[in-house]
């Protein structure tokens, strides 16, 4: 009888099967989970914060070169991606709402839509990365070169080293963001599976809610990245 680890304790059949052994009530468990999620997001803010800090230092020091490098990004794709991502945040919110009111099929539908939008974002990002490779805008490669001049100074060519720092930060920040997106898509695939199994409803949707928090966070990071990276010195 003493052969299995308590890890496998699943709870009583007639109780909420999601209630873990060491919690007293569902409410306690839900509160713990969402506090944990918020703390995790604070950690994430600090994680991106280090890169934002580096970005600000160099943007201040090398503004002209950063502006020039920023202008080489594809504004159209960036804008589309911003819309895609905001749309996906909406679908996540809708999925959670559907769980609250118990619309089983709609949960799955919205979650699938979220995944599609997430993948679309990653696809567009991949196209942008491809362009950067084709244009030799990838830092660290021997063929790195950025044509052009500093804004409002047609006679000052872009400093290649400083442009390279810009693109290093561009790839580090968007790359780290994309990594979060990939993890998010994986997470949502799992949530979709669970939702498909009918796991979430008005009584229990904590994982959906926390997954949503994560997704919104990743979305918000992009909301900062987009203007900082794409819109440094754009004029109509």
């Amino acid at each position, binding site marked *: 009888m003493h052969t299995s680890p308590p890890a496998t*304790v699943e709870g009583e059949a007639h109780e909420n099967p999601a209630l873990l052994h060491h*919690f*007293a009530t569902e409410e306690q468990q839900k509160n713990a989970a969402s506090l*944990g999620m918020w703390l995790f997001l604070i950690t994430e803010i600090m994680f991106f914060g280090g890169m934002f800090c580096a970005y600000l230092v160099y943007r201040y020091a090398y503004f002209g070169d950063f502006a020039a490098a920023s202008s080489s990004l594809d504004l159209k794709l960036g804008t589309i991606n911003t819309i895609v991502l905001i749309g996906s945040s909406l679908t996540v919110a809708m999925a959670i709402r559907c769980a609250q009111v118990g619309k089983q099929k709609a949960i799955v539908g919205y979650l699938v839509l979220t995944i599609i939008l997430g993948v679309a974002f990653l696809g567009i990002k991949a196209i942008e990365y491809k362009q950067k490779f084709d244009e030799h805008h990838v830092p660290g490669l021997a063929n790195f070169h950025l044509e052009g001049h500093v804004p409002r100074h047609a006679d000052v060519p872009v*400093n290649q080293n400083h442009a390279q720092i810009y693109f290093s930060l561009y790839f580090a920040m968007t790359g780290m963001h994309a990594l979060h997106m990939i993890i998010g898509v994986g997470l949502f695939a799992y949530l979709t599976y669970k939702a498909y199994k009918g796991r979430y409803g008005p009584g229990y949707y904590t994982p959906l809610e926390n997954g949503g928090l994560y997704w919104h966070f990743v979305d918000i990071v992009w909301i900062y990245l987009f203007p900082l990276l794409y819109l440094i010195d754009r004029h109509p």
Partner: protein
Amino acid sequence: MHRPATWPRRPRNRKFQVTSMATAVLETGERETYLNREYGIKSWLLTVDHKRIALLYLMGITFFFFIGGFFALLIRLELLTPAGDLVQADTYNKLFTMHGQVMVFFFLIPAVPAVLGNFLIPIMIGAKDLAFPRINLLSWYLYIIGGILMVYTILAGGVDTGWTFYTPLSTEFLKTNVTTAALAVFVSGFSSILTGLNFIVTTHRMRAPGMTWNRLPLFVWAHYATSIIQVLGTPVVAIAIVLVALERLFHLGIFNPTLGGDPLLFQHLFWFYSHPAVYIMILPGMGIISEIVCCFSRKRVFGYKAMAIALLGIAVVGFLVWAHHMFVAGISLYAALIFSFLSYFVAVPSAIKVFNWTSTMYKGSISYQTPMLYAFGFIGLFTMGGLTGLFLACLGVDVHVTDTYFVVAHFHYIMVGGMVMAYLGGMHFWWPKISGRLYPEGWGRLAALLVFVGFNLTFFPQFILGYMGMPRRYWDYSHSPEFQILNVLSTAGATILAVGYLLPMIYFLWSMRYGKPAPDNPWNAAGLEWTIPSPPTTFNFEEQPVVTWEAYNYDELDQRREEVPVAH
């Protein structure tokens, strides 16, 4: 604030059919505990019991402590003579680098929180486990993966960046295993973050009825403050280390001045975490000392609220002082001024703590068991470490003594004199609870004495060396033979210290088999952990504890003992 009204019904799952923990008796006739409930490697590697995970950590931490200690001994042996004659220059550089990285990231940071904190926090607040048991196990695996990467780094030839990874040396110039070392630190950092996250949520959400914030043992407060730093600080060093690795792999130029980067930016990012990391190491130790001093003085702690606020104050102000590591690095005069000023702020709560521990002893009933000896040692050494910190915060003096042995001595007084003393004191204090056995008291006192004497002999001479101007990280000092006598003293001390550290490991292991079985409360100490059997059962409490007493109610305990003499 939510608090559970009733203890959960024990799940009647087919996999788990214990009718009542109190009556659970194994077929051998022994009482069932978290240790003997299951056997086999799988029952340990897949456990989510916080107590078992604490023991898993204990093994890893002990392993890395002795690895790091071995490097330290080699360093001390090399410095016995002025010439660089025992090892090559590169080897020496690797030794102090790996000593630092192993000790800081794989011993000091996880030691108290991951072992004692993990074991005790749920019990102290009356919970069955941490809020996220599986994440707790994940933390351990991350620690081990980081540890394996570190061991790989060592075996593959080592790394010689210095534990600080300063750029551009680490990114552009060294040919050693910098990337794997960086990865090791990165991965173990996530272990630390998740542990901190788990502790914060547990402290907020899992407290038993009646366990208000004002009744929390200071040990829990200390870990709460520590966890805040872990959650806020660690990700910053994680990203700085990632950038070092990327820079090294692709030569991006973010920290490389020849490509327009700024090496000081790395130092800022690094110390933004690594200064608060000092408090990750020392705050849990302060928590332990508070428990021990109260218990062996039979007294309530002097100024409970001040002690708790001081812990949080150190955690918060600790985030605002990082650039005091950079007074000669080339930062502006005014930045230095501000950081020096703030550094004195963080000294005030530390001073409060020392005075309050001392006052706790006033009119107490003090006995000198091993944990209390370590506590005495802690107060003395931490005081000296703290006061020499004031020298380093003092701009005019720092210019002379920074990057010398003065700094080395200072942080070893805090890290080893403070934190390791507290860790050993805590291990002795709670060993009966953890293992269910008593350690041999005589040997314990001897080891405590050896550690204290050996420590002072090792590190006190280094203060003088530092003021004489011996820079740190020097392999060869044949140009200045006047440094030798103090180095010889230091090396002699290190050998005594080594014996002092080996002894507890030996008699702890010995006691697991031959030690006297421990009673539930061998010290007659206050706190929920002493109300349950030694060792505890898997779910800690038979029934939901309800706390009706204040922390450190030694008056009541002693009164009760007088009424009902306890047979030992």
